[in-house]
């Protein structure tokens, strides 16, 4: 994009075609083949009004939206680019215009990132072949989808990539993405221009543009709607002149590419050209803000302290290792939620464990964690393949943990950071190990910085870790670490990362030493400590430091943190009369855990399961059936019992004995159905009754269910469907299971099912509710 000049874009296409007779509901793109002259006429009208870059009529030319049109994306795109090129002549550029797929991506929707990537790959390669000058992704509201699109372009074609998102007046997209998150993510991915289109008029979008320019140095695009539509008629009422006058103010913000979206016509573009006459895009200052982000939350790298949670890491944690080996994402997701609730602002993700396919697991865990928290992530691995898998799956802008001073490590990892736009942690060590002096560590930090800059990273995105050594083994090293830290932050001006927990290894009352070291490190300039946020002393230290450093203005955050803490409440003594059964019935997790521990003193693991936990759950189930209690309490009780099972399981794992699983069950919400809360309730209850549940998720095709049933050799499969329209898919699944010859029982449940209907589609059992599914499991599996 040339500096100093505006690029005049076009206005709406869809509404122009509808005015020319396109029926609502028909793909506008089909007219590239059926009515090319009418599409070309729209392009010509815009060019006559002053447009210098037209968007071809290819916005919805993806395989999903074209599914019923009878046309393939390649066909429609070739026609669309070809006719545009012919209509506009050699002096006007033609963009391959690409909108959202129309299907929501995981985790909220069902479309996978990889499928989205492939949909866009098909479009952009067709666009390049057809001779487009650039690719323009627009009207995006999901940052993950836009990332798939940009990667598809960057990895498969050589054309420039423009990206534009659609925001609400609140400064968020429908999916919650913010302006800083968009800027950080798209700058990181290296788009050639970015901006906003659709949803609002120029007046509403200008304040958002004001924010965007502070977070990116990319050229800026603005394509607003013609104001806000009349809800009753859907018509836009702003005049071309009013639109153009407002939009022309964007020139002062340094916006270079300007045009219109819904409701705009060639008249609007003509008025825009007039309004911009004699103006030039204002010179822009270099961006002043840096940070990392998820799609909806940004952590600025501003010198203030932001804690990175360290708990998603199997090192030294048996239970976490077990979760990784069993693919138990629920356990890992709970660790993520717990850390966010405790105050972590970034989550470190480490899944390195012998025998685990690290890249595959990294992708899975990143996706699982993102489904339940909105914190930015730090991809922690030494395996470049795992780092790349993590960076690809991240929605937002991540940190890579880590590189060190070794040239081959820098050469392997820094290009990945550049490609995906990640910040990077540099450990001040190399082949020679960790240097003993601060000076030598600073020397390595310099080397890492130089390499990062040479690979195209920004200085602000290099985060140096001066390394914590165990004070009980190398006492003098604590001072060296702090000295190096002071220099790196103070003299080099780089942000610093430091895992502090290791300092106290081998000492009694570890927390006291850890927290003191953390405080000293923060004073020395540590702004990104890696620690366990669940330790309140750690978070206390951060909160207090932020008051003393002045970062916490008027101590507001500090005061809020302790607002609800009673002065000195006496600890509530344990209720000595409470039984394990009572604790479960009341849904008291901690008490259940404590009473299970106590029971283990006198009973075996299996006795506790058979004589205490299961009977307690049964009593709760009976009360539920008598409608004395309701579903939430049934689940609470099951959850409390789960605490007991967990303790028993841990004890058995420690002994190295087998498992106490009462049998395996495959559960799935059938293909076409996305309502899975019912299935999830059943899963929780079954797990808490001691069964191992293989949960295949929602919208699961019959063949995957059959495959899992055979692979896991399960004797019971549970299927759920909520809608009348998806019961057919349930019937097909049962048919496929029977046809496979695998010997298993099938239980079905879901709002629309009845016992009669269940029989009719060949199910062995109808489960009215979660309680009954547990009864069925007992009958089938014991």
């Amino acid at each position, binding site marked *: 994009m040339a500096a100093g000049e505006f690029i005049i874009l076009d206005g709406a296409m869809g509404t122009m075609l509808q005015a020319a007779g396109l*029926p*609502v*509901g028909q793909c506008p793109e089909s007219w590239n083949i059926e009515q090319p002259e009418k599409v070309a006429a729209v392009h010509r009208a815009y060019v006559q009004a002053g447009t210098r870059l037209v968007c071809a009529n290819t916005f919805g030319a993806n395989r999903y939206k074209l599914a019923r049109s009878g046309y393939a994306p390649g066909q429609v795109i070739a026609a669309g680019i070809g006719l545009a090129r012919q209509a506009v002549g050699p002096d006007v550029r033609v963009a391959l215009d690409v909108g*959202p797929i*129309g*299907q*929501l991506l995981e*985790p*909220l*929707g*069902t479309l996978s990132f990889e499928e989205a990537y492939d949909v866009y790959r098909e479009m952009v390669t067709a666009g390049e072949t057809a001779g487009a000058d650039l690719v323009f992704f627009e*009207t995006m*509201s999901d940052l993950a989808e836009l990332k798939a699109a940009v990667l598809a372009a960057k990895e498969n074609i050589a054309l420039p990539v423009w990206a534009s998102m*659609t925001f609400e007046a*609140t400064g968020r*997209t*429908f*999916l*919650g993405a913010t302006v800083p998150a968009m800027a950080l993510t798209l700058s990181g991915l290296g788009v050639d221009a970015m901006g906003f289109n*659709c*949803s609002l008029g120029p007046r509403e979008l200008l304040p958002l543009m004001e924010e965007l320019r502070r977070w990116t140095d990319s050229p800026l695009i603005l394509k607003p709607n013609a104001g806000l539509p009349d*809800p*009753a*008629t*859907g018509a836009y009422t702003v005049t071309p002149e009013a639109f153009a006058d407002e939009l022309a103010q964007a020139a002062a913000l340094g916006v270079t590419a300007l045009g219109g979206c*819904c409701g705009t016509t060639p008249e609007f573009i003509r008025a825009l050209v007039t309004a911009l006459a004699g103006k030039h895009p204002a010179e822009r200052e270099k961006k002043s803000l840096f940070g990392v982000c998820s799609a909806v939350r940004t952590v600025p790298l501003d010198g203030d302290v932001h804690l990175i949670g360290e708990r998603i890491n199997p090192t030294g944690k048996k239970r976490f290792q077990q979760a990784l080996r069993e693919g138990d994402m*629920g356990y890992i*997701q*709970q660790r993520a*939620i717990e850390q966010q609730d405790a105050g972590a602002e970034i989550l470190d993700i480490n899944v390195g464990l012998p025998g685990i396919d690290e890249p595959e697991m990294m992708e899975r865990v990143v996706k699982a964690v993102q*489904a*339940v*928290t*909105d914190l930015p992530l730090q991809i922690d691995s030494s395996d470049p393949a795992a780092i790349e898998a993590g960076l690809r799956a991240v929605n937002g802008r991540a940190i890579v943990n880590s590189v060190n001073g070794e040239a081959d490590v820098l050469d392997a990892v820094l290009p990945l950071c550049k490609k995906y736009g990640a910040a990077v942690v540099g450990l001040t060590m190399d082949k020679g190990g960790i240097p003993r002096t601060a000076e030598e560590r600073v020397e390595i930090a310099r080397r890492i910085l130089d390499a990062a800059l040479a690979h195209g990273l920004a200085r602000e995105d290099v985060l140096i870790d001066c390394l914590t050594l165990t004070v009980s083994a190398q006492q003098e090293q604590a001072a060296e670490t702090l000295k190096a830290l002071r220099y790196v932050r103070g003299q080099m001006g780089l942000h610093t990362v430091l895992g502090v927990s290791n300092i106290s290894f081998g000492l009694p009352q570890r927390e006291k030493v850890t927290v003191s070291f953390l405080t000293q490190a923060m004073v020395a300039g540590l702004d990104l400590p890696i620690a366990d946020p669940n330790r309140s002393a750690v978070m206390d230290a951060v909160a207090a430091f932020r008051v003393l450093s002045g970062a916490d203005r008027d101590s507001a955050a500090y005061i809020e943190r302790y607002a609800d803490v009673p002065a000195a409440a006496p600890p509530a003594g344990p209720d000595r009369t409470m039984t394990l059964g009572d604790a479960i019935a009341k*849904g008291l997790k901690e008490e259940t855990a404590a009473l299970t521990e106590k029971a283990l003193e006198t009973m075996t693991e299996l006795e506790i399961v058979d004589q205490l936990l299961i009977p307690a759950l049964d009593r709760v189930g009976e009360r539920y059936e008598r*409608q004395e*209690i*309701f*579903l*939430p*309490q049934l*689940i*609470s009780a099951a*959850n409390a019992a789960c605490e007991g099972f967990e303790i028993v399981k841990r004890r058995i794992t420690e002994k190295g004995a087998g498992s106490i699983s009462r049998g395996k069950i495959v559960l799935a919400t059938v*293909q*076409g*159905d*996305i*309502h899975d*809360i019912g299935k*999830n*309730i059943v899963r*929780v209850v079954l797990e808490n009754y001691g069964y191992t549940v293989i949960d295949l998720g929602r*919208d699961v095709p019959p063949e995957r269910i059959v495959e899992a049933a055979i692979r896991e050799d399960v004797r019971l499969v549970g299927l759920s469907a*909520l*809608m009348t*329209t*998806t019961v057919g898919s349930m019937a097909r699944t049962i048919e496929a299971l029977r046809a496979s010859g695998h010997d298993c029982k099938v239980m079905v449940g879901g*709002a*629309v099912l009845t016992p009669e209907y269940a029989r009719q589609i060949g199910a062995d059992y109808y489960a009215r509710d979660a309680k009954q599914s547990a009864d069925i499991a007992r009958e089938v599996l014991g």
Partner: protein
Amino acid sequence: MEPRLTGIDRREALAYLGWRGGPVPEELDVALTRCQTLLMETVRPRAVWRLLDIRPDGALGDTGFVPAGESIRAHLAGCDQVILMGATLGAESERLLRRAQVEDMARAVVLDACAGAAIENVCDNLCADLAAALAPRHLTGRFSPGYGDMPLCQQEMLCQVLDVGRRIGVSLSPGGLMIPQKSVTALIGVADTPRTKGPGGCPSCDRRDSCTIRKEGGSCGGR
């Protein structure tokens, strides 16, 4: 006419949880209050609507959309206009519900029930606003694709006419289900005379298929 969430009906939420009257256990009462507060603070409802003439051939305005089936024809009998509406609790509610299912399933079912009551409240408010704006004309109740014999596949056309993807951030799954799940689309008839058959009743209830009260042969009596 901004979409508004003004309250979450506890009795309605309780009904979704299987309550049939009688005392409400204290823990449940506390959980309900928490979920109500959380939703009221977090959710930003969005809505879109269009007012269209019913043409003699049954098509709505110039959209080419012809609602199919006897039930919707009966619902719109005597009406010369129709409001198409779409409303959603948005991605915020969807995320809350997903997270709650990992965190604590017991809370998740309460939250789900409250969110169900919340989207009904948003729709009720929108209908009340529309009724006031169109007075002295009269509105029928809401009728959604999938009710009676109106095929669920018409959801797609309705969503296209309302442009729900761009306007309120609702998308359809390949199976024709709306995401976010707490979303509603509906047709509302507009007539000069009040409709004798008021809104409500099982046949026009959007929980018709999933209602356990109805399955057991009962009725909530339109609440």
